[in-house]
């Protein structure tokens, strides 16, 4: 089954060794659990149905209780523990050393993504080479968030003041949806991201693009937008590498036009949504940290033109 291009966020369709394990574990656990439930429920309902006119027996039934309440469960639980230990070992380290490192910093309510080796910085979209182990260093700029890509890897928290080291490998090329899984404030519901797994060559060219400084504006509208952006309030929060805009509050916008979505996957990245977001993001994602921008229609159009040129 090809999943290329399809967003996927289900634990039932794993595409990496970590989620492979948890999915296998799930089906084992589910089978045992279903069996236990069927037996117990049958016994409980059976008693109501079958014992209504029965003769009362005395006795403590200690043997039955010990056998079914202790001995058999203990065996099952021991096996479960073995599964757990195997799992802990399995997800502890990748099969071979990681080729690249990515820093992910959680923010209320978006994901900062940095490639320290190349200097690339982006947001809410994590590109990785397919089939290659990637080291992840997770931390947070504010509150606790949790990094979760159900199809690729289980959760690990992003904790301010701590760095959690982990790794992921994506076995199939495609885009996989992730979402913050630790309640982190008013817009916790809109803090999603994507893991985009690409063939090595595509990944390298993407990374090279992301590492380079922003394109210079060419058209008049783009130039006008550049001026508004760098001289106005935009630059106090956002960075566009290679320009005077070096704000550190919001996402790096150097290559904004390459991203598929905006506002941590809240809206698509197209002209209409981008304009709406800049004018009043509070209507789209109430409570987010970006105040409404009272730009004149001309300035707004210019800024949109400039941002759309940032490929």
């Amino acid at each position, binding site marked *: 089954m090809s999943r290329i291009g399809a967003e996927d*966020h*289900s634990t*039932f369709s794993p595409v990496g060794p970590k989620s492979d394990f*948890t999915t296998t*574990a799930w089906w084992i*656990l589910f089978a045992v*659990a279903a069996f*236990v439930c069927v037996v*117990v*429920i049958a016994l*409980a*309902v059976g*008693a*109501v149905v079958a014992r*209504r*006119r*029965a003769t*009362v*027996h*005395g006795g*403590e*039934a*200690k043997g*039955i*209780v*010990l056998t*079914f309440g*202790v001995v058999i*469960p*203990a065996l099952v639980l021991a096996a479960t*523990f073995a599964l*757990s*230990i195997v*799992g*802990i070992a399995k*997800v502890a380290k990748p099969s071979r050393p990681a080729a690249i490192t990515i820093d992910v910093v959680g923010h209320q309510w978006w994901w900062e993504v940095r490639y320290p080796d190349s200097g690339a910085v982006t947001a809410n979209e994590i590109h990785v080479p397919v089939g290659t182990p990637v080291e992840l260093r997770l931390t947070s700029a504010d*509150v*606790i968030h949790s990094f*979760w890509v*159900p199809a690729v890897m*289980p*959760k*690990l*928290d992003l*904790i*301010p003041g*701590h760095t959690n080291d*982990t790794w992921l490998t994506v076995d199939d090329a495609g885009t996989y*949806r992730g*979402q*913050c*899984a*630790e*309640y982190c*404030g*008013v817009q*916790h*519901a809109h803090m999603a991201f994507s893991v985009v797994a690409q063939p090595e060559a595509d990944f390298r060219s993407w990374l090279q693009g992301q590492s380079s400084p922003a394109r210079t504006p060419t058209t008049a509208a783009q130039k006008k937008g550049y001026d508004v952006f760098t001289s106005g309030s935009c630059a106090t929060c956002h960075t566009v590498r290679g320009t005077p805009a070096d704000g550190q509050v919001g996402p790096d916008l150097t290559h904004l036009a390459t991203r598929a979505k905006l506002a941590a996957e809240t809206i698509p990245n197209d002209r209409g949504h981008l304009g709406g977001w800049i004018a009043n993001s509070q209507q789209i994602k*109430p*409570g987010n940290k970006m105040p409404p921008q009272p730009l004149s229609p001309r300035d707004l159009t210019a800024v949109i033109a400039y941002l759309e040129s940032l490929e």
Partner: protein
Amino acid sequence: MTTEQVEPGRDVWPRDVEAAAAGMLHERAVAEGAVGDRLREVWEEEPGFKGFLTTVNHKRIGRRYLVTAGFFFMLAGIQALVMRTQLGSPNNGVVSAETYNQLFSLHGTAMIFFFATPMNSGFGNFFLPLMVGTRDMAFPRLNALSYWIFLFSGLFMFASLPLGMAPDAGWFAYVPLSDRFSSTHGLEFYALGLLFLAVSSTVGSINLIVTALKMRAPGMTLARVPVFVWAIVTQSFMLLFALPPLDVANVMLFMDLRFHTQFFVESGGGDTILWQHLFWLFGHPDVYIIVLPAMGIISSVIPTFARRPIAAYSFVVLATVATGIISFGVWVHHMFAVGLSDVAQSFFAAATLTISLPAGIQMFAWLATMWRGRVVVTTALLYAVGFIVTFVIGGVTGVMFAVVPFDQQVTDSYFVVAHFHYVLFGGAVMPMLAGLFYWWPKMTGRSLHEKAGMWSFAVVFVGFNLTFFPMHLAGLLGMPRRIYTYDDGLGWTVWNVLSTAGSYVLGAGFLLTLGVFVESLLRQRWAPDDPWGGNTLEWATASPPEDYNFPVVPTVHSLNPLWDEQSLPSMVEHRHDGVRTMTDKHEALRTSELDARVEGPMAMPSDTPVPLWLALALTLSVVFLMAGWYVASAVAFGLVAAIAAYWMWDRPDVEEIEEEAG
């Protein structure tokens, strides 16, 4: 303890024709005839509104606990219905993100702290003294204090909602979201409200423990103590050990919020994860604080309706106590996604698995009891069976969390929401409903409409499963918990629609249940003393029990005193024995801790408004602290100390009793 000698399956056994016509047990009729009038005089409390405020009677306080906790259940349930409505369709706008976040935070906080735990206290208050065969709690005034503080702290917490300052960081309020990043005063309400409530839980626990240890009827050795009483005592000890970490955490949180201390601030030398350890060190035992007494209710209901003593009694008791102890060693399984060491994770995985063994013991003890008995189908029994069915589902998904990577996959997703509702609704609410249907005639003196009750069970059971079962799937499909909305096309819509539909069915089920209770109160279907042919001592009292509970304190000869041949007749036997009747003064019988030998009567306090004053003064102190009026708060706290001193000093109506050797 000789369960073999018990005659199982004895229904109400009327030997006195007149008493039987009034639904009275023969033995009680004789005992009441001997001393009832005199005791009624001695134990009478002030009538009317003043009596309402000054009562120290454990049954009135117990009922009050149940009604108040039920009221908070209703409020938190309505919040849940609003949340389910919001999630009923993608990108819905029934409530704003802020409101939704306040709703789920208050829903969890209220259900755990202001419904489930106090509901157990209500059952414990009403039935523990009756089951051990005594006349009141060990400290009746402390009992009144415990209730008033519970009521006022609950009102304090809920007052935050209309003030627009409800807690909004979830019921476990992780720092730093609850700390430096909290923008309203909601978390101050949370920290203070829980500290305030903890006073109530602490004194209530001590009261229940002392009552169970010192006031059991003669002959009720530890091996003859009903499982429910064991469960309440275990729960009370757990509260005493689990609350301090929570209290400490809340003091630190309040200090951080109000006085800018740095307990949880990394840059100030504090620690973010400290809160999680302290919270779950309370929080996991709290699951069993809620579930154990509920299981105790099941251990009361099933033997009665299986017409035989509980199977493997000693194992059930050991399992209860073991659960209480082991529950303090599993808290880290709430933190498997934090990034702790593999060794720590394996240890807590093993502990998590271990704690399911005692649950297995109890489960098969109930099943064995039913399979070796004759099952009488009543609403209470149906709820008990409903409990077994739902609790086993919550149990097996709980075991799954011991597989650490799987836990990391599903934690903080809807899978966990499904799991803990199966555990807490299945494991606590179902048993509580079983308990209400079982003990309603004892508490109110009226019978319930059984057929309507069974329908209520059916609707609640279907509604519950329809609400919470689909959440397992939503979680496995990647839906995180605590999101106020979601996009269509993620594959979650259908499961959320089902859940929302289920929640309305569940709501209808509760309305029906409420209707069954109200109908019973409006009718005059008077209940006999022992409508079900129960096995424990509460059924030896009137329905509802007289103020003094037992005219003559019986001698307990077995684990199932109402089913043996000697315990009830002992009430007749001892009806002229002053130590057993205590007709002269307001007294209860004190016995030894282990083997319940008679130590002699002890004085019991009469009704008084002092606990209410103290609770009000403490409320003032807390409200002033919340308002930032620290001097006023200190003055109010001084008032608390003064009232406490007066309480200890002035002991109206307590007459000195000579110590008698046991």
